[in-house]
């Protein structure tokens, strides 16, 4: 699914980033690239989302969110925590 559709409170793994070069570089600098876990925290006014990557929080608009494909996994870690 696209990151724009990830419900608030849910985490997912980034699968692909379709953005063009300039935006993609910026996204990568902030840690958004395939294989990374992102958490959708809440919806923002204007249709964007606030997303957590690592310890950083980013506000992205619909256009940017639409370029990011994510997948929700059920993963068990050692502590029994699911993603």
């Amino acid at each position: 699914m696209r990151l724009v559709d990830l419900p608030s409170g849910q985490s997912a793994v980034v699968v692909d980033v379709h953005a063009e070069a300039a935006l993609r570089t910026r996204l990568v600098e902030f840690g958004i690239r395939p294989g990374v876990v992102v958490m959708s925290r809440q919806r923002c006014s204007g249709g964007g989302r606030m997303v957590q990557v690592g310890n950083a929080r980013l506000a992205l608009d619909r256009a940017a969110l639409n370029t990011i494909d994510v997948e929700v996994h059920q993963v068990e870690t050692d502590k029994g925590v699911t993603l």
Partner: protein
Amino acid sequence: MSLLGRLRHTSTGPTCHEDVSTAAPDTGQRVIALVGNPNVGKSTLFNSLTGAKRSIGNWPGTTVEVGQGRLAGHAPEKSTGPLGSIPELTVLDLPGAYSLDPNSPDEALTRDLVVGRETHELPDVVVLIADAPNLTRSLYLLAQLRELPLRIIVALSMVDLATSAGIGVDIDVLAEAAGVIVVPVDARRRHGVDDLIKTIVDELDTPVPSPRRESDHLEQMTPLEVLDERFAWVSRVVDVSTVPTAQPRPTFSDRLDRVALAPVVGPLLFLAVMWGVFQLTTTVAAPMQDGLDRFAAGTVSDLAVNLLDLIGLGGGVIEGFIVDGLIAGVGMLLTFVPVMGIMFLCLAALENSGYLARGAVVTDRMMRLIGLPGRAFLPLVVGFGCNVPAISAARVLPDARQRLLVSLLVPYTSCSARLAVYVLVATTFFGSAAGTVVFVMYLVSILFVIGIGLLLKATAIRALPDDPLFIDLPRYQAPLPKMLFDLTWVRLRGFLRTAGGIIVVTVIAVWFLTAMPVRGGGDFGEVDPRDSVYGELSAGLAPVFAPAGFDDWHTSAALITGFVAKEAVISTWAQTYSTAEPTSESEPGILGERLRDDFERTSGGHTSAAVLAFMVFLLAYTPCVATLAGQKREIGLRWTMGSVGLNLVAAWIVAVAVFQIGSLIT
């Protein structure tokens, strides 16, 4: 010969306190330096990397202990093959260091080996051992190392320790964000060591990367600025690559953001905050302004008059120049200080607290309509308080063209000085409907901003970057008072320097023109306003406003001084009608009567239409001199002149339209 150079010419062997021997030719020995904070497991890793042949000894010429050994698995061939001897790979275990700015001889050695050396003297590869539980501290060294021409590999140790402490490190993200290869190692259990060795050997064949820095002029920065830069980088890298291993819990910032970024409540909250800033500025600044005004126009002026009388220069031109020119000018300048100061303070607080970033998010969509990012909302809202700091506030925008567009739009925001005039005029002509009329003027102001914005976007300022919204939201924090005051003072000082001279000069010029007689035979300084140069100018200008219904010289005179400051409109009216200024804005008194008479006359009976046209013209025709000074500083003289031109044309066209259409209706 450099220390490292000398080392290259030595054969390794188990000796202590050896003195280096020279003379052996360069055998192609490559040096791998191990660096890192103390207690990160460096020595353990060194042991794993070097196998049997290693030694510990003093570095030549120092008392610092250094380990030295051959990289495991890379002994030279017993014989030399067709390709010559295989290069030996020497590993140096340097003492623990927190920074390349040395606090001890130990750290000085590390620094010595990597800073300020020729390429052939540098280690071929630097392996930085960073420990995951103390990633920030470890990465500071990396921040310094990347500024040098070195091949760097990061060996990340104790990853499991960090994970059980609740901090997961994403190796790939770390590598990408930091711009170096990262190899996780567990030296005690020998995990990752082989990978590390292979990576080292591979890396030896790659070209040396050029120094990487966040900004280009590292040498000209103060030590504090350099620290800021390095730590901002480290902080960012650590932030994006560390993941809490437990389910991320909402922080205090997150809980605030639930409200601040919410779809409906968010923008409302922002408007409320801006309204609060606006209110704070007017209510706190207004009494200060009155006070300063009375001080300048009253106390200081009286004092000056008395002094001049004393030294026999009383009356006449000199007194006029000093009191009505210089003192009045400086006094006017000072009255800006409370407004500017409070506005800057509020802006600094918004910025520092982190709330500004949220404001940019919530206003983004609205601003996109005129091709501006959400941040542009801020200077425009500030403009409704006072145009002068609004121009400076345009600096929050990262792009020069966006700053230009905003600077051109600020003059159309109706500032509080204009409000003063509106209230007087509205109560004079519209009585109880005054409040509504004033509110309508604010709507007109917004329409102007949007309209001119669209116009400019379609013509003069095309191709604005259409940044997708992507804002890093910092944690909320309580603003630090000292930082706020510093920021405020710097900006205030900038304003005083820019606008100060211009305001004083303009006031003096107006005084001069008003004092200079043209006809009627009066003396300089003793002349009736209408008979002065200023009066003649105003009368000459008045016919321009005929299509808009207010072609009276008193009003054009007032508009001319409105160029200096909008508050001056009222005082000039009073001056030209030779009445006293109204004691309060809502009781126009005699001045009101005179105005009513004249407007009635010039508008041919369509008074309301003419009054509205006048107010619209006042709204848009030109900002005050202080704003123009700010514009000149931000966007340059040519654009400022263009801006004024556009102001005048737009204001005139709309004012005429209002009058013509209004006359038809009333």
